[in-house]
């Protein structure tokens, strides 16, 4: 097939697609640079400062990588005790981008960037955003309701955070010799 013929065919097929579907195709499944920047700005507010600035940045980067790895329409866990099939929903990324943009706009409306707001103003903005998104508790894992709650879940539900909370090297869900589990976990470095 000649290149021009191919392009004509693609254009003809595209013309037949409903507009809303075209819009879905057009939505990015990657966080925008502005969204990533905003995520990095918010991360020190919601992740514990005791893990250090570098680890906070690294956690936010891993969360961004998590969003890239998300797959739509995949069967979710339905092992023993799960008699019905559920599939993963649409990518949370478009929603995340909107939510981060909204937080940025609200911060600017209060007179500056997120990082410049006092803690209670940050809390008030997040509280309202979570309420609007229907977030009532820390999700068991990122669930697509609100990007900041998901970032928090991404860290606080991790094996690393469990160790940090207990100040001990438990290494939950980390492959390790069974003999190690028979001893009291060593104190965290």
């Amino acid at each position, binding site marked *: 097939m000649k290149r021009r013929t191919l392009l004509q065919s693609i254009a003809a097929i595209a013309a037949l697609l409903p507009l809303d579907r075209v819009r879905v195709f057009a939505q990015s499944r990657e966080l925008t640079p502005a969204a990533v920047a905003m995520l990095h700005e918010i991360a020190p507010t919601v992740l514990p400062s005791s893990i250090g600035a570098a680890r906070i940045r690294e956690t936010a980067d891993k969360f961004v990588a998590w969003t890239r790895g998300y797959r739509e329409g995949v069967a979710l866990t339905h092992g023993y005790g*799960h008699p019905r099939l559920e599939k993963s929903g649409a990518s949370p990324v478009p929603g995340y981008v909107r939510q981060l943009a909204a937080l940025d706009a609200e911060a600017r409306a209060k007179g500056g960037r997120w990082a410049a707001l006092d*803690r209670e103003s940050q809390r008030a903005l997040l509280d309202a955003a*979570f309420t609007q998104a229907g977030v009532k508790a820390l999700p068991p894992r990122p669930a697509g309701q609100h990007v900041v709650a998901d970032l928090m879940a991404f860290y606080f539900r991790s094996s690393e955070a469990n160790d940090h909370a207990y100040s001990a090297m438990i290494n939950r869900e980390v492959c390790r010799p069974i003999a190690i589990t028979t001893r009291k976990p060593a104190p965290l470095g």
Partner: protein
Amino acid sequence: MPVHETDICIIGGGITSAMLAERLAELRPGVGIVVVEAGRSIFDAQNRGRYRDRAIQYDEHPWPGDYLEDQTADGIISMTMAVGGLALHWGGACNRFSEEDLRLKSMYGLATDWPIEWRELERYYGDAERRLNVSGEPSPHPGDRRSTPYPQGPIPLSYNLQILKAWAEQSGLSFSALPMARNLTPFGGRDGCCVYDTCGEVCPSGARYSPDYTFRQLLTPKKIALHDRTLVRRLVLDEKRPTIAAAHAVHQDRPGEVVEYRAKTFVIASGYCWSSHLLLLSAGPRCPNGLANSSGLVGRYMNGHRFMQATANIDDQTFPGQNMTHSLISREYFRCPADRPFVRHDTRVWESSAGRDPRLRAPDGTLLMGEELLADWRSRTRGSSVRLRAYVDVHPSADSRLTLDASKKNRYGDPMPKIEHRFDEATLSRAAATKAHVLGVFATLAKAGNGRIVNTSEGDYLDHPAGGCRMGADPAASVCDSHGRTHDHENLFVVGAPTMPTGGCTNGTLTFVALTLRSAEAIA
């Protein structure tokens, strides 16, 4: 129409099928065995680490494509349909029943007796444990004596379980490490355990037994043929005799073409749901109520056990996450004195983080952020939560049924099953006393270690379901004999869970396998 001829046709590809095929190949080397399974083979063990990671990060199912969307039932507890069956993602618990399970009628005047002597079944338990490479420790109760030792010593107790054992035994009950089909060192082509702690979802090392390994080991030397993605829709009676002449199936890629299996012997190894379903679907002019159903009992006496659970808070310090899928078990209440009100149950203890997990809001509703959230979490890590559970012996009525639901059909137009569990009168009449007893045991456990019960709940379904083709000596009161041979058709067997008259009071898989190994000797 493609026709496959063989000696033995096994319908279903779960754990009982794997164990049966393995044993038949030993008993009759060279015998033709075809295993027909509706679901697909998932033999990519090399990918299981990646599947596990995605399950943890994204909640994706770690057994891709292990289901048929239109082949589901009301009342089931798992929709898995693949080579390996539900044992692809079982926890690996391998508890034995006790003699009382087989003698409910003669000892207590309840339910029915099984047509097997305990001493005989006990031998097959030993064989099942050897094949599954169960790790365990001898029970302290004389009634649990064994003729063979466990093939492996117990899974070493985590530090947490050592703490919880010391706590729980202050109550006067004795607890042991839960026996599990989990390799401590490499065995059977599978690696040793390295505590991925996702036994119930997927085990990347293969330490927790799953039947796909057995099937692969049988396929390599061509001891069996495996036809996956092939759904058996009907068994066909011989035109002249009351024997099964063929099984008619359909392959997923060729939905319009009937595949015929002709065999000397047919074995239904399709679990508690699909075994009865196939017999009922196979109704015809000579058997209008389904095959093997002259008693009218196919799909009846569906059973399992109820469960009650609790969370206790105790002062001793544990560190949740050490080995969450292992537990302690007490068999103290497996036996009930005949002169006391009947109650039987196991008692299990797990580490837990219930009530001690990170939370988004403080009790006053304040949103917690960053270091505040961590501080709140840390303030709740002192002491321990303990998960308690009891599987309770309950007995089915004849109305505890699997029926064909004409309102729900698969792509071929076959009605799908509907399971509704019902208890017999005696079970219903003692329900309140049973609940009071179990909650009393939980309270006693908690109190012994300065603990408090903080919540209790009851399951709203029966766990480890079984039944539907119950075994017995009387053809009018059972579907098959003690070997699973159907009373109506001499070359048709049912094996494993469906044959159990009652569901016991602890995990059933080891018993399904032991019964199947016993059946193998009659089938061979």
